[in-house]
């Protein structure tokens, strides 16, 4: 008990003594925890709203479309309505594919002819206005949102004017943009008058047989997929309600996947940040470790104090991340306009909370373990003298650097002294470039998808949502990477005080030393930035279930690498200049003392 009290007291005192570092550790772990919370909060976000929509609209178990061009007809649909296991139906409803013009956009739509009376199965739930009347249409909500259509607006279908009577949601079809083209409902007579569409005349040269849609209710809704598979023919397309639900879910699954991957990347960066911070702190705490050991502290106690400090910070960071993630989740967890209801603030389950806490503790543990063990192993005499950890010797690099200009000579030798720090720096840059390249690839994909999307180049709500999520992750990663670069440079500057001062005493100019310190960061940043490109491609290949994202153009990749190096140089120049400003004699004397 006494030991725990001692460890807690020492850890608390040290944290209070260095509040800025404690806050930074807390912030970097909290950023990773927040992203992980967001990713977990998106899990299953659409399933509940879909079920609500299905209940509110008397959603069908199977939707059958009969395409006249392929031999489907109203008669074949009615035969299906009498199939074993079918307990009810609505329709067949005539379908048309007119071009809708509204607010300057021209979009191909699926127009479904309906009766003024409510249907027993799939009666779309109005969220605005009223149900269809002659000369009026009802527009599916997610589609209406994209077009900016409201009840009372005027639209045209194949050039004929219609008034928007209302806006509604349905569980029969996946919401826009899953169901492309967009969905509208209008009176049967109007639908028949619009079908077949002018496009089908133009392509076939002959008037096309009409298309129809039928909604079915089954005795066993769970068997909807089996029913659809059993009855699908070339003229009849079937869609079970489970498929509709799953397609709606894809609206957020990409975002969820992005957030989960982003949270792991942020977690890795956070581990790198904490490792650098803790390592830097250890360099400053060498004498304290010596004192603890000199007064009887065991190596275990020294390691325990360091671990306790960072695990305590990680617990607070996890709590902060969970709270921030829960508060921010509704911004990303909207199920989309195609479904009724919202999931509200996502309730975090106990396993999710445990996962976030475990992730935060793991980050702190991984980052602290090596410095803690090193501190525990440091000889008491050496620690009391405040001697820095002896630098590594890389004979090959030292020999090779002799041929380089002075700044590169200094930079390479300084980088070689602390290979672990160089690896952390390279990894941090690689993760950041991976994300930036992934975002560029996604933008390229979204641009390509947009070009082949509808007739009007309407924004795709799914890609818009994914872009927002990726932007949030990228900003968080770039900020964390920038903080990392500054931390690492500062740690390098502190560690390189003596060799830098000595180089200046032996004739290196302050500019050469400053450039050398920047080179220390740029040397690992270059392979890190280059490695980020294949890593992004690999990451995309690993996580994309379907079509892989396109590789961004070469000029963009080159710009990312050069831009990253430029930013690293800029970020490191300031601490490097500050470090090189201190008088040589002062540094050499203090290092001797």
């Amino acid at each position, binding site marked *: 008990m006494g030991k725990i009290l001692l460890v807690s007291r020492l850890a608390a005192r040290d944290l209070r003594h260095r509040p800025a570092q404690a806050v930074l550790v807390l912030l970097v772990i909290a950023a990773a925890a927040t992203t992980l919370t967001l990713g977990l909060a998106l899990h299953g976000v659409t399933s509940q709203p879909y079920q609500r929509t299905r209940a509110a609209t008397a959603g069908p178990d199977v939707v059958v479309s009969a395409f006249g061009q392929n031999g489907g007809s109203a008669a074949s649909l009615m035969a299906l309505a009498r199939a074993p296991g079918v307990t009810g139906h609505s329709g067949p409803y005539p379908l048309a594919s007119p071009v809708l013009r509204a607010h300057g956009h021209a979009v191909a739509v699926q127009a479904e002819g309906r009766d003024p009376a409510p249907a027993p199965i799939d009666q779309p739930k109005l969220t605005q206005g009223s149900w269809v009347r002659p000369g009026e249409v009802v527009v599916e909500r997610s589609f209406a949102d994209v077009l900016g259509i409201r009840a009372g607006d005027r639209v045209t279908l194949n050039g004929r004017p219609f008034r928007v009577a209302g806006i509604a949601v349905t569980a029969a079809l996946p919401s826009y943009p899953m169901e492309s083209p967009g969905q509208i409902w209008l009176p049967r007579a109007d639908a028949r008058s619009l079908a077949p569409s002018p496009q089908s005349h133009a392509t076939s040269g002959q008037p096309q047989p009409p298309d129809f849609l039928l909604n079915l209710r089954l005795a066993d809704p769970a068997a909807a997929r089996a029913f659809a598979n059993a009855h699908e023919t070339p003229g009849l397309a079937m869609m079970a309600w489970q498929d509709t639900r799953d397609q709606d879910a894809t609206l957020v699954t990409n975002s969820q996947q992005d957030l989960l991957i982003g949270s792991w990347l942020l977690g890795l960066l956070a581990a790198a940040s904490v490792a650098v911070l803790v390592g830097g702190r250890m360099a400053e705490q060498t004498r304290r470790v010596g004192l603890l050991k000199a007064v009887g502290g065991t190596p275990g106690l020294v390691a325990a104090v360091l671990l306790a400090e960072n695990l305590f910070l990680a617990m607070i960071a996890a709590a902060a991340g969970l709270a921030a993630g829960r508060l921010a989740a509704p911004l990303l967890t909207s199920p989309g306009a195609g479904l009724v209801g919202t999931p509200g603030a996502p309730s975090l389950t106990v396993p999710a909370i445990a996962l976030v806490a475990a992730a935060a503790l793991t980050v702190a543990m991984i980052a602290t373990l090596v410095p803690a063990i090193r501190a525990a192993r440091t000889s008491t005499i050496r620690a009391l003298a405040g001697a820095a950890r*002896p*630098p*590594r*010797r*890389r004979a090959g690099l*030292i*020999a090779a650097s*002799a*041929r380089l200009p*002075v700044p590169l*000579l200094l930079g390479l*030798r300084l980088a*070689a*002294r602390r290979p672990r720090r160089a690896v952390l720096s390279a990894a941090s840059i690689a993760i950041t470039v991976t994300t930036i390249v992934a975002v560029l690839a996604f933008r390229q994909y979204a641009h390509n998808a947009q070009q082949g999307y509808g007739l009007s180049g309407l924004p795709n709500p799914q890609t818009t949502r994914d872009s927002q999520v990726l932007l949030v992750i990228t900003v968080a990663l770039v900020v964390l990477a920038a903080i990392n670069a500054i931390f690492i440079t500062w740690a390098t500057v502190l560690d390189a005080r*003596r*060799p830098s001062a*000595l*180089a*200046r*005493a*032996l*004739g*290196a*100019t*302050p*500019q*050469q030393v400053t450039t050398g310190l920047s080179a220390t960061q740029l040397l690992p940043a270059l392979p890190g930035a280059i490695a980020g490109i294949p890593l992004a491609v690999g990451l995309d290949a690993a996580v994309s279930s379907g079509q892989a994202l396109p590789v961004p153009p070469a000029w963009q990749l080159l710009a990312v690498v050069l831009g990253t190096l430029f930013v690293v140089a800029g970020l490191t120049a300031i601490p490097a200049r500050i470090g090189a400003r201190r*008088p*040589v*004699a*002062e540094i*050499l*004397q203090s*290092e*001797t003392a």
Partner: protein
Amino acid sequence: MSDTDNTSVLRARGLRKEYGKEAGLVRAVDGVDLDVAPGQTLAVMGPSGCGKSTLLHLLGGLDRSTGGEIWLAGHRVDQMSERALARLRRDAVGFVFQAFHLMDELTAAENVELPALLAGRSPRAARRRALGLLERTGLVDRAGFLPSALSGGQRQRVAVARALANDPLIVLADEPTGNLDSAATLEVLRLFDSLHKAGQTLVIVTHDSRIAATADRLISMRDGAFVDETRVTGGTTGRLADLAGLEG
């Protein structure tokens, strides 16, 4: 050397270095005048904290003075930019520190060749020069050793070799035997003696009377100012060990 004595490699006039303000003002160097002729060995002695090391740092351009003038090799040092000072240190000054200040991760040869590499010499020329200097200091067989594998005296001899890497006009040594035992002190004394014979200009700051006895001139310093000067040249060279009382 427009304003300086043509016979001086190093000259200081009214040199001052102050720390703090008002009641807390400390005059580490207080109005020092100094001339060092080429080939001369000057020893500055005094108790700890009298300002010897600060004076040496000012003379070598490692620190900025509060007032006064310093001329080195015909250049006014105290008004130079950091960049120009660095170049001057590189080309004209060699430093030897009490704590050796060798790079821990570099071998003896790599430490010695470093100033030459910083001066832009080719790696081959720098290594050749380094091995030559290590031979001169009797350490060529230790060229590939890390400082941690060398004795204190050997480390200081490596540091002296490094100070000579760019053939400087003057070598400034700050308590070069301060961290050494008697045997190691003798090694270093012999080395300085050989430099003296070779005509190397030396300024040695020390509180060790044995090393001071090897100098041509001995200046005593107290509270930042010179209080006494003795010319001891005329026979020390060659009788160094006897004078120092370290042998036989």
